[in-house]
């Protein structure tokens, strides 16, 4: 259920649905909150069962003056069927050269700080990052780690807002409120299309409720006739004028990864 790999929502929803029903929300209150949740869950569900994947990612950072800089990395993801435990991800940087081989292992948590380890090849050591609040920018980009990994269904509560055309499609517009205490946002607004149930756009609102960033998803492609992946993601920061593009390529599914490829000890043996 991690979306290191450019998809948005994943993970089983049965338990969540079950919980929602058993809470016994009144029919009327249910209408917006339940509808928001259901649409998000359907989108998430459309991605279930990919098991594992690997993809190359190029990040292009742009500042207000228009200068650009790139980072490249490879991301491996392991899907964890239990929706109350997040997916596992391994990010290996290849450029810039001075961080080549640096690897970040992440065990995503739903409502707790993620477990993260970083292997520093220059130091030949693995360091555990035990900070509670990692809502800052990811490698200097306009994405936070949360933006890349945060698309877990249960990380939010939902509210259905409206239906709206989005490009050539029609989208459901859903407000989502982060449940994690240290989230950098007060709310997000997501546009999910009605055709293939993929997220097309997300607006991020900062702590004072102002629009901070807009993320657009472009060029969705279907893999294994089942899994939609956006090839490009554009994040625009409205407040500081900076932006970041994520360009995904060479998606592979069913690489044959397992839990033992996502433990701390494996980091030292990567290269």
């Amino acid at each position: 259920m991690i979306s290191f790999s450019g998809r948005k929502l994943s993970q089983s929803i049965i338990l969540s649905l079950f919980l929602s029903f058993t809470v016994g929300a009144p029919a009327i209150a249910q209408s917006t909150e339940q509808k928001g949740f259901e649409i998000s869950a359907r989108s998430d569900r459309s991605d279930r069962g990919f098991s594992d994947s690997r993809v190359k990612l190029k990040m292009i950072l742009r500042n207000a003056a228009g200068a650009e800089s790139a980072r490249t990395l490879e991301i491996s993801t392991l899907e964890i069927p239990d929706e109350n435990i997040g997916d596992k991800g391994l990010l290996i940087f290849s450029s810039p050269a001075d961080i080549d081989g640096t690897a970040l292992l992440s065990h995503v948590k739903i409502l707790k700080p993620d477990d993260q380890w970083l292997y520093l090849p220059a130091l030949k050591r693995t360091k555990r990052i035990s900070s509670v609040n990692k809502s800052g920018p990811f490698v200097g980009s306009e994405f936070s780690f949360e933006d890349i990994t945060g698309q877990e269904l249960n990380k939010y509560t939902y509210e259905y807002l409206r239906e709206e055309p989005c490009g050539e499609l029609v989208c459901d517009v859903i407000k989502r409120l982060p449940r994690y205490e240290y989230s950098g946002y007060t709310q997000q607004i997501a546009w999910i299309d009605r055709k293939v149930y993929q997220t097309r756009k997300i607006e991020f609102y900062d702590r004072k409720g102002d629009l901070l960033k807009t993320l657009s998803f472009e060029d969705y492609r279907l893999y294994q006739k089942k899994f939609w992946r956006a090839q490009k993601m554009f994040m625009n920061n409205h407040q500081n004028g900076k932006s970041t593009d994520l360009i995904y390529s060479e998606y592979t599914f069913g690489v044959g990864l397992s839990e033992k490829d996502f433990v701390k000890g494996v980091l030292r043996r990567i290269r």
Partner: protein
Amino acid sequence: MQNNKYTRVDRFAVALAEKILLYPKITIFITLLIGALLASGVIRLQVSNNYRVFFSEKNPDLIAFEKFEGTYTKNDNFLFVLKPADGQVFARRTVDAVEQLTKKAWSIPFATRVDSVTNFQHSWADGDDLTVEDLIRNGASLSSEELDSRREIALAEPLLRGQLISLDADTTGVNVTLQYPEKTLTEVPTATAAARRIAAEIEKDYPGVEVVVSGISALNNAFAESTVRDGITLFPAMFVVLVIATWLIVRSVSVTLIKIVVIILSTAVAMGYAGFAGIPISPFSGSAPVIILTLAIADSIHIMSSMITLMREGKDKLTAIKESVRINFLPVTITSVSTIVGFLALNFSDAPPFHHLGNMASVGIAAAWFYSLTFLPAAISICPCRIRLTSGQPRGLQRFVERIAAFVTTHYKAMSICCVVFTVGLALAIPTIDLNDQWVKYFDERFEFRKDAEFAINNLTGLYPVEFSVSSGEAGAISNPSYLEKLEELTEWLRKQPEVVHVYSYADIIKRLNKNMHEDDPAWYRIPDSRELAAQYLLLYELSLPYGLDLNDRINIDKSATRVTATLNDIPTRQTRAFITRAKEWFSTNMPEHMRSGPTGAPVMFSYISERNIHDMLRGNVIAVILIAIIMMIALRSVTFGAFSLVPNIMPILMTFGIWAILVGQIGMAAATVSATSLGIIVDDTVHFLTKYLRARREQGLDRAGAINYAFSTVGFAILTTSIILAAGFGVLAFSTFKITGEMGTLTALAIIIALVGDFLFLPSLLLLGSKKTSSKGVKP
């Protein structure tokens, strides 16, 4: 006077006056309509609230700074300063206040970052665990020992010490960085109001903790507040002065009222023009209404005094009006044009508010000229004005003027020598003037901003951040040990400079990380040994930071440059310039070519603002002098006298600056504006004096002394009164809350008074001097 003696200008003036007197109501209607239409632009006026209004788009210092900001982040900020009564920041109650303030500060509109001692991202190691966390969380629940350890960490931390925590830990700061969308002018006041509300809430919730708000945003807000405050105090004050002065001169309520209408119309037209032209009103250009008010009076005074004099001589009202328009048309036009030339010359300066003031004043003067020659005669012709014809000019003053004339004609040689000696002596002092543009001191002590800023400076840190973007030459190379060592060297050098109170440098962060990576062993508090190590430490650290506390405002995106901020103490800009020069020298001797960086930032911009504007205005002044000389030549119909007339007008400007150099010693950017505008204003008296002098010589064939006496008796009183009114008007500006406006007002008032003395003592002396030599050739006509 007979018609055949009239010049073409005279004939035009008479024709104009006759038309106006034939259709006075239509004239009044049309002129009022024009005025109303132009004045309607007033509703579009906006008050600027950005210090950058003082820098043109071409200003190289601004361009450099905007480039810097495009790479890192905008520098707008609020600095909250908290001082607990017991002098203990690291006490439970105070850290709780700081935490609350830190949290609340996030709600300030446009805030993008909040830094304080509590949310400072303290990094520490526990074996192979790296923890990056708030230095203080839930401070109210910490033990005294825990707080003491936090105190030690904060005082040892180069990024905090001297910036967010005072050296003895009795005062602390919360710095809020803002990104304004810059779409409306309400942004800064809105944010400032929110910041002040939060400060008040904290003071209320934590009695004994004093909280003030400072920073660039507070400065920007002060610019707007100062403009508004001056507008509501100075303009009414000047208005009252003018009403009283006018009444004293004309002694007629209805004429005074008509005159007030003329002045209000002139001012309203000028402000309406500003509205239509989209000119933002800033502290300096905000003085335009007072200046127009002052200058507008001069035109109408000449017309009205002539009219009253003529009526006292027994002429009926209509004849008096017509004759008054005729004899004043040319001098009033010439003096208006020369004053306009002086003000338009301000367009040569770099600072847009100077252009704005120059252009608004020019429109106002043109409007005053127009209304004095159209609306004024029309209104007087139909109003049932009762002009007291018995009381002449105040006897005392008249006798005083006559005595001066007698004195000058006998002691002209001594007077000439005196004037020359004084002028030269004072002019020699001018180079000692110290150009100072400390923006905190732009605002007088009545201002909350000034008090708060000084509180911040006295208790916590400086307010003048000088920025350096230190490049490593290529992408990622900021992690090169050779770069980091140089950066460390720079940081240490900066810390040794007496002007510097704080230095923020990435070198300190990477040294701390190196220590953290080696189990917090202090021996490792140094630059990492390889580029890869430094780059990977940085990556690790970046992955650990929370929202809003990242390094993106310190390191550029391709990691080829970092930003070093040296906060300077409260020092005059002369010392800032010395520091900048020293820093540049240090860079060129100690840094490789690619690492050299010119300092930038608001203090750098303000340090050179006066020099830059004075330099740019030199050309403007030369052109103004030449144009005014040509105008004088045409007006006096004599090349010799036109050129000669400049002497008594340049002298007062030299003396003014000389007196200022001796009495005050320092001046801000106002210095650049005063020469051209003063010249345009003070030359008027010379025009009136010389016109009368030459008329006496040419038409009445009087000798020099006789012509001087004639000039004194005809215009001496008018020159005296208009000079006093003008000096009073500019003198009112001395009470401006904004130092630059105050200096401009005081200097101009001083120049006007000296020019008056010059016109009464020096000008006649010069005319008499060498009379024997030239008397055979004679004054041409």
